[in-house]
């Protein structure tokens, strides 16, 4: 097998699909007007926004009017959490979340604790990465105003019992936000059936452009804005609309909806082959996350005695792009907070590898990884002072 370029970091970001880019292009030059304008340059654009909103809504079974476009998943998470927190300050100051949230949620909660007088409970997870519903119930106080629990984890792919969580929140009259960034387009989501109040989404995880996201806000849910200004997005999120980006998000959502079943089937098959192969061929290896409640495209391993960056680097040299921990935190050299939360020791957590699969991956890609990865792990182990054969 010759050298390839295999991308297995779809959980970090995805390429923009051709159809998506094609849908976007007209809005840069020919139809560039401001959606709020009266004249012909602006008018063409309003319909495009509406269509994109419909498509995002359809993907999660929301009403069009419940979709608010934002500048990305992080903004959506920040908006949901700060928006609900500030709007309900007089009702209570307690927020419940988990230890394995994305930093967009974790750091937002920490900020509210440190600077705005909120108190946050960070729920534990079991070794699969799932929360305990009893612990959730027990942590609710009469000051709890928000529960924010991610739909599916970006590192280990674990899917939470969203419907049960929403049910508990509803019984107690507490708003429930879920970070749906990783779940969107990868598993079926029906916000109405699940009973979700707010859900953050991001386009660039579903083959759309970066810098566009959305927040689902169930009709009637009140929260403060975090970007004040013009009357866009029904006055709830100001800023000249990123029309090309929004159109791209809409197209990506449409494609995701149409192809959801085959997407899930294909990725699940590839993922299972990858996991099986790696566990068979490489000793002292651990699969992180749940076998059952797992995103179709996620595989996450720990290889004892070696460190993640040198593993990534070695994989990169043979043309395999993976990640270790989450890409967003690679500025930090601490091991992933998610792996620590599922109970791994530091040394094992340092040797983690996430291979996240997507639409461009093939069976041959998996074969290629299964050929190279064992050799690479073995080479690094041979250099490791921790490894005694």
């Amino acid at each position, binding site marked *: 097998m010759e050298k390839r370029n295999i991308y297995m970091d779809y959980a970090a970001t995805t390429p923009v699909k051709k159809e998506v880019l094609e849908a976007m292009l007209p809005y840069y030059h020919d139809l560039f007007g401001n959606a709020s304008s009266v004249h012909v340059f602006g008018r063409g654009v309003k319909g495009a926004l509406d269509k994109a909103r419909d498509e995002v809504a359809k993907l999660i079974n929301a009403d069009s009017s419940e979709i608010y476009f934002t500048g990305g998943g992080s903004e959506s998470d920040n908006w949901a959490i700060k928006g609900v927190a500030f709007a309900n300050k007089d009702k209570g100051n307690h927020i419940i979340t988990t230890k394995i949230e994305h930093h967009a949620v974790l750091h937002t909660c920490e900020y509210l604790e440190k600077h705005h007088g909120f108190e946050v409970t960070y729920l534990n997870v079991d070794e699969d990465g799932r929360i305990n519903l009893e612990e959730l119930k027990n942590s609710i106080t009469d000051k709890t105003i928000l529960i924010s629990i991610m739909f599916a984890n970006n590192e280990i792919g674990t899917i939470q019992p969203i419907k049960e969580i929403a049910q508990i929140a509803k019984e107690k009259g507490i708003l429930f936000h879920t970070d749906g960034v990783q779940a969107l387009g990868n598993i079926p989501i029906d916000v109405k059936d699940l009973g979700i109040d707010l859900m953050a989404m991001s386009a660039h995880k579903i083959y759309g452009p970066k810098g566009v996201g959305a927040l689902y806000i169930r009709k009637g849910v009140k929260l403060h804005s975090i970007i004040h200004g013009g009357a866009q997005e029904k006055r709830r999120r100001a800023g000249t609309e990123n029309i090309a980006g929004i159109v791209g998000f809409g197209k990506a959502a449409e494609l995701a909806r149409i192809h959801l079943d085959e997407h899930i089937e294909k990725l699940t098959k590839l993922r299972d082959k990858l996991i099986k192969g790696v566990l068979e061929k490489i000793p002292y290896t651990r699969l992180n996350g749940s076998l059952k409640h797992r995103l179709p495209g996620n595989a996450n391993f720990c290889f004892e005695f070696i460190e993640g960056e*040198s593993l990534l680097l070695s994989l990169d040299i043979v043309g395999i792009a993976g990640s270790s921990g989450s890409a967003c935190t690679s500025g930090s*050299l*601490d091991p992933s907070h998610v792996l620590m939360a599922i109970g791994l020791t530091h040394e094992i957590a340092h040797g983690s590898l996430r291979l996240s699969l997507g639409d461009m991956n093939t069976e041959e890609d998996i074969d290629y990884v299964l050929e190279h990865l064992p050799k690479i792990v073995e080479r690094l182990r*041979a250099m490791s002072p921790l490894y005694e054969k």
Partner: protein
Amino acid sequence: MYSEKVMDHFMNPRNVGEIENADGIGEVGNVKCGDIMKIYLKIEENIIKDVKFKTFGCGSAIATSSMATEMIIGKSIEEALKLTNKAVAEALDGLPPVKMHCSVLAEQAVKSAIIDYAKKNNIHIDGLEDIKIDDDHDHHHDIEEE
């Protein structure tokens, strides 16, 4: 992000391994932080005749270990003690700022192997007492939060 030299030493590390009955062994780093470097010295008449290393760590940790062993082999102990992390980094055509601390690890591993040698043989080496090996070396954390 890494120079070609770093990549070369990462992919083809020199002097990997252990030395049986080494005259000095230095181990620094901390498994919690994701890096451990172990250096083995064979010393004859004050000259470093052989060096081997084993490293658990990032690409830069492996490359700096490899480079450091090359830079001290054949040197006298006094010369080897002069090895600085900057010299190792420079010999590798530089390291990214967040990776400079990995080269500190390499410098300290060499020094702690020499300390071990001095202790075992009960000899005095000038300047050795001033060296502080900091196992819990700081990992870079960016400062500007919020």
